[in-house]
């Protein structure tokens, strides 16, 4: 345990961590100090006075330096004459508090009476009612009646939209400032503020568009009353009627732990449906936060457009068939095409689905390619060697750590990591951002490195060169366990390091810890592979591996990309499939047709295409057979997040009739092939198979994955004051698989990487990723539509002037055979010579890698 100090709570002595907040310290030992404004994830402000306690300290004799003792040999405590707010105290040696004396009890009673003077007491219709700290604390500590006259209550607006997602009830607000502090301190978005003074004090949104942050939903969780409600859930159910099912967000590589609040629903024919998504505490993943995409993006699961029967295309028209026929159709085709079958897995299949798909591929032919979609990122090898250490805890990084984010627009691609890195920067961590264009993280970075698109690898190489020159290499590791150092050294030798890069290197390499987040913005697949290797080289050489808070994280473009790579799927296989198209394709939950014109053309030529899917996507339209599968909410499974944490999700919603789990479908098909065995009866058993065959997952099982322990700060427990009943983690903390660096007997390999960058002469189009897009899993969440931008492209002012376009113009971008209609934005985002084009803002494909383009203005 870290350093401790001794404090006395109600006459009992306790050891508590040094520097802890008094409220947290007391809670650790089971003493509740009720709070409203304090929240363990934010700095205390002492606004509500609910946490008043009697505070004293041991008096110390100046001469002897020892505590004065009374006649019983007990230390003398000098009590302060007035009550003090516990939340603003940091524990110190000899501190003493009394939390239940008559004075304290009376004070709490009075504070509650004041807070309730103008509270509407409409608990019966309040979304928080039932899990409300104000309700709870009033019952526990409050006065039975009020001395204030009911008629003197002030009445305020009860339905104030703060943006289209969150509504404010002014009467209910107790002005604790948790919501504004969350936006300022945790997120750093200046969107909420207090307005006016005294009785008129109220929360207003100060941004345009209103409440413009990707994390707005979290304020409804931490609001200690029902003042903030979400448009999505409002009046959806009473909290006690909901049952919480642990799940994992299927939208991005962070893999936030979520809790699906479910209830039977009449409109859905008595099915159990998701009423809302709440965060579930996992300190090493998402703490207690989730982004608005995760919170409001669950509606695909209940969409009426879901497919419910297998369908076969006969003479261009869809015919509904039963599952048995569907299986026969597939198995007979698989046997017919044998070696000429290609497999393609999407970004949000579960590990179990992927495993059965891989088994099916192996059974079909010896070297069937199993590709991964989108095929824009790779680098399993680098992650396996130098991935972040097991136990990495972003929320704990401080001045001793450096974080490098390269080639990624972090907030759009991995919102919660962005939040954590931003807060780490606030705590003093040295954050460095390397990208070809400004991103939101820049403002928190100690150092920003701008390169030209395509030169990302160079930056990492230069840092490695710097490390070598300035004796920053970890010699023991390099000499003991690293292969290929000589070649790498030869390659790096003599490289000139530009000043900007050496400054950055100095900053990064001066710290104990280093985490690198690598994306793929502006990189081709080949360059991205080199970037990953360059990052691994750097981390291995400098010894930033095999320890928590050190290592590499890839910002994959999907929730379970890591799992897919772990199980043998790869983007390289996809490329080879597209280069040598097979006659038959088996596609699992991927939508290449909507995303890539080339893939669309290739699939069009194929003789038979089977797609397992939840929706009639453009890929499904083009297929010959579609197999309806269940959403993440309707079954069990595991996802592996990009920090390699394997995490379980559970069945939250009644499964859609007619659809099956994808793993079951693949297993059924496989069982009919020669040598096929009987399908497993549960996902847990599939995981057992995986654990037996895949080294990385060795020893994993559903029981261990479901293991939970108390986390600090404990906001999901049974206290009355942190609010929200869904923070508690009952579904498991997950297990991270260990990297090779962490296994003593593995050798690590470094190799020279090619930093060769194409010189982009002409106007070049760079595809970028946005959080809110028209992805098939997100688009059915209509509540979010206002946040999805209409298709647009970012132009540099210089290019725009040359092309004669201004902000807001409609333009047609031609790249290869593609014609893309978008509106132009000229706002300083794009570097000269580049056009930034967000992917998936419409159902029409855009290039997946940098591409030459020309631009034409559409005349009105």
């Amino acid at each position: 345990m870290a350093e401790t100090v001794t404090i006395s709570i109600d006459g009992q002595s306790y050891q508590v961590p040094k520097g802890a907040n008094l409220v947290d310290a007391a809670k650790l030992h089971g003493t509740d100090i009720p709070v409203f404004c304090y929240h363990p994830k934010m700095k205390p402000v002492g606004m509500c006075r609910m946490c008043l306690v009697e505070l004293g300290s041991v008096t110390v004799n100046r001469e002897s330096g020892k505590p004065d003792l009374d006649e019983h040999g007990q230390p003398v405590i000098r009590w302060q004459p007035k009550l003090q707010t516990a939340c603003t105290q940091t524990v110190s040696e000899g501190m003493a508090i009394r939390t239940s004396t008559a004075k304290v009890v009376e004070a709490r009673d009075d504070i509650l009476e004041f807070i309730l003077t103008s509270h509407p007491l409409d608990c019966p219709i309040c979304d928080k009612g039932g899990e409300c700290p104000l309700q709870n604390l009033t019952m526990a500590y409050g006065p039975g009646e009020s001395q204030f006259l009911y008629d003197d209550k002030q009445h305020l607006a009860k339905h104030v939209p703060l943006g289209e997602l969150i509504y404010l009830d002014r009467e209910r607000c107790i002005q604790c400032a948790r919501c504004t502090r969350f936006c300022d301190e945790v997120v750093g978005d200046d969107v909420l503020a207090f307005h006016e003074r005294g009785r008129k004090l109220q929360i207003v949104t100060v941004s345009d568009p209103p409440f413009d942050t990707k994390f707005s939903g979290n304020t409804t969780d931490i609001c200690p009353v029902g003042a903030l409600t979400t448009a999505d859930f409002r009046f959806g159910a009473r909290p006690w009627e909901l049952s919480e099912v642990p799940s994992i967000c299927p939208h991005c590589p962070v893999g936030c732990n979520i809790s699906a609040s479910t209830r039977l629903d009449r409109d859905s024919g008595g099915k159990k449906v998701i009423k809302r998504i709440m965060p579930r505490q996992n300190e090493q993943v998402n703490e207690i936060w989730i982004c608005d995409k995760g919170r409001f993006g669950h509606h695909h699961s209940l969409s009426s457009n879901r497919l419910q029967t297998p369908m076969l295309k006969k003479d261009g028209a869809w015919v509904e068939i039963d599952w048995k026929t569907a299986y026969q159709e597939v198995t007979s085709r698989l046997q017919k095409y044998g070696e000429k079958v290609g497999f393609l897995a999407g970004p949000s299949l579960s590990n179990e689905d992927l495993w059965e798909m891989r088994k099916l591929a192996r059974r079909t032919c010896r070297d069937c390619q199993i590709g991964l979609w989108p095929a824009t990122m790779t680098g399993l090898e680098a992650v396996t060697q130098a991935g972040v250490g097991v136990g990495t805890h972003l929320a704990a990084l401080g001045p001793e750590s450096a974080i490098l984010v390269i080639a990624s627009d972090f907030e759009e691609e991995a919102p919660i990591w962005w939040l954590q890195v931003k807060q780490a920067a606030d705590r003093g961590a040295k954050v460095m951002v390397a990208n070809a264009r400004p991103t939101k993280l820049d403002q928190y970075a100690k150092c920003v490195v701008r390169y030209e698109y395509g030169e990302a690898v160079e930056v990492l190489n230069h840092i490695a060169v710097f490390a070598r020159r300035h004796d920053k290499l970890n010699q023991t590791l390099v000499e003991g366990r690293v292969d290929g150092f000589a070649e790498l050294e030869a390659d790096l030798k003599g490289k000139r390091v530009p000043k900007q890069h050496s400054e950055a290197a100095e900053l990064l390499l001066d710290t104990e810890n280093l985490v690198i987040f690598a994306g793929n913005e502006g990189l081709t697949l080949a360059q991205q592979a080199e970037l990953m290797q360059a990052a691994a080289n750097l981390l291995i050489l400098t010894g930033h591996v095999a320890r928590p808070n050190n290592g590499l994280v890839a910002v994959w473009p999907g929730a379970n990309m890591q799992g897919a790579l772990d199980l043998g799927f790869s983007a390289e296989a996809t490329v080879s499939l597209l280069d040598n198209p097979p006659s038959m394709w088996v596609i699992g939950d991927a939508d290449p047709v909507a995303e890539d014109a080339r893939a669309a053309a290739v699939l069009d030529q194929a003789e038979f295409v089977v797609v397992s899917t939840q929706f009639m996507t453009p890929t499904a339209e083009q297929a010959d057979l579609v197999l309806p599968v269940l959403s993440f909410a309707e079954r069990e499974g595991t996802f592996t997040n990009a920090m390699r944490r394997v995490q379980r999700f559970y069945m939250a919603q009644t499964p859609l009739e007619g659809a099956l789990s994808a793993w079951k479908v693949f297993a059924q098909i496989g069982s009919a092939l020669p040598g096929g065995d009987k399908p497993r009866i549960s996902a847990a058993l599939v995981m057992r198979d995986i654990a037996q065959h895949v080294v990385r997952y060795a020893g994993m099982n559903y029981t261990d994955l479901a293991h939970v322990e108390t986390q600090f700060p404990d906001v999901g427990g049974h206290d009355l004051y942190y609010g929200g009943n869904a923070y508690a983690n009952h579904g498991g903390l997950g297990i991270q698989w260990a990297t090779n660096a962490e296994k003593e007997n593995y050798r690590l390999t470094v190799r020279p990487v090619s930093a060769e960058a194409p010189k982009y002469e002409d106007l070049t189009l760079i595809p970028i990723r946005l959080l809110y897009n028209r992805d098939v899993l997100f688009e059915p969440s209509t509540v979010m539509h206002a946040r999805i931008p209409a298709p647009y492209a970012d132009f540099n002012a210089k290019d725009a002037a040359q092309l004669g376009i201004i902000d807001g113009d409609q333009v047609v971008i031609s790249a290869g055979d593609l014609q893309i209609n978008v509106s132009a934005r000229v706002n300083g985002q794009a570097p000269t010579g580049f056009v930034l084009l967000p992917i998936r803002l419409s159902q029409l494909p855009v290039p997946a890698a940098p591409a030459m383009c020309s631009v034409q203005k559409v005349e009105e």
Partner: protein
Amino acid sequence: MNLVRGFATTFKHILEGPVTVQYPEQERPLRERFKGKHALKRYDNGLEKCIGCSLCAAACPADAIWVEAAENTDEERYSPGERYAKTYEINMLRCIFCGYCEDACPTEAIVLEHEFRLSFNDRRDAIYTKDKLIDPLPAGVEGTPRQTEPGVYTRSIPDMKNPD
């Protein structure tokens, strides 16, 4: 002696008329507080009293009530305030007519009334839906949902009064 007293009682009752009532030809008056089938009440202006708070369902020891709420707007208003019961069902086979729902209701919307002749041929018909439970409209007022003036019906729960 005891024997005489015993027979005296017997003979006294022989002379009294029968207590049996010939139901259904004859009916005994119900007590004021008799608890029969529930009614969902309306205000005099026709708006529904029920605000869909589900407290009745929470109080019900037999788990007989099912409430789903939705949001009122001034264009489509069912009840005062922001919330109304979109679905309101009571399973009369489960109900034990204890009246706890009545006690729990913050708006006096659910009241156990005097109807006790409930019959059904199918268990599913025992689930009384909102349209079976809700009181008829008072004469001459508009039904629900209805369009209302903005800013009038902002409160779900009728104003409390200071104790006299």
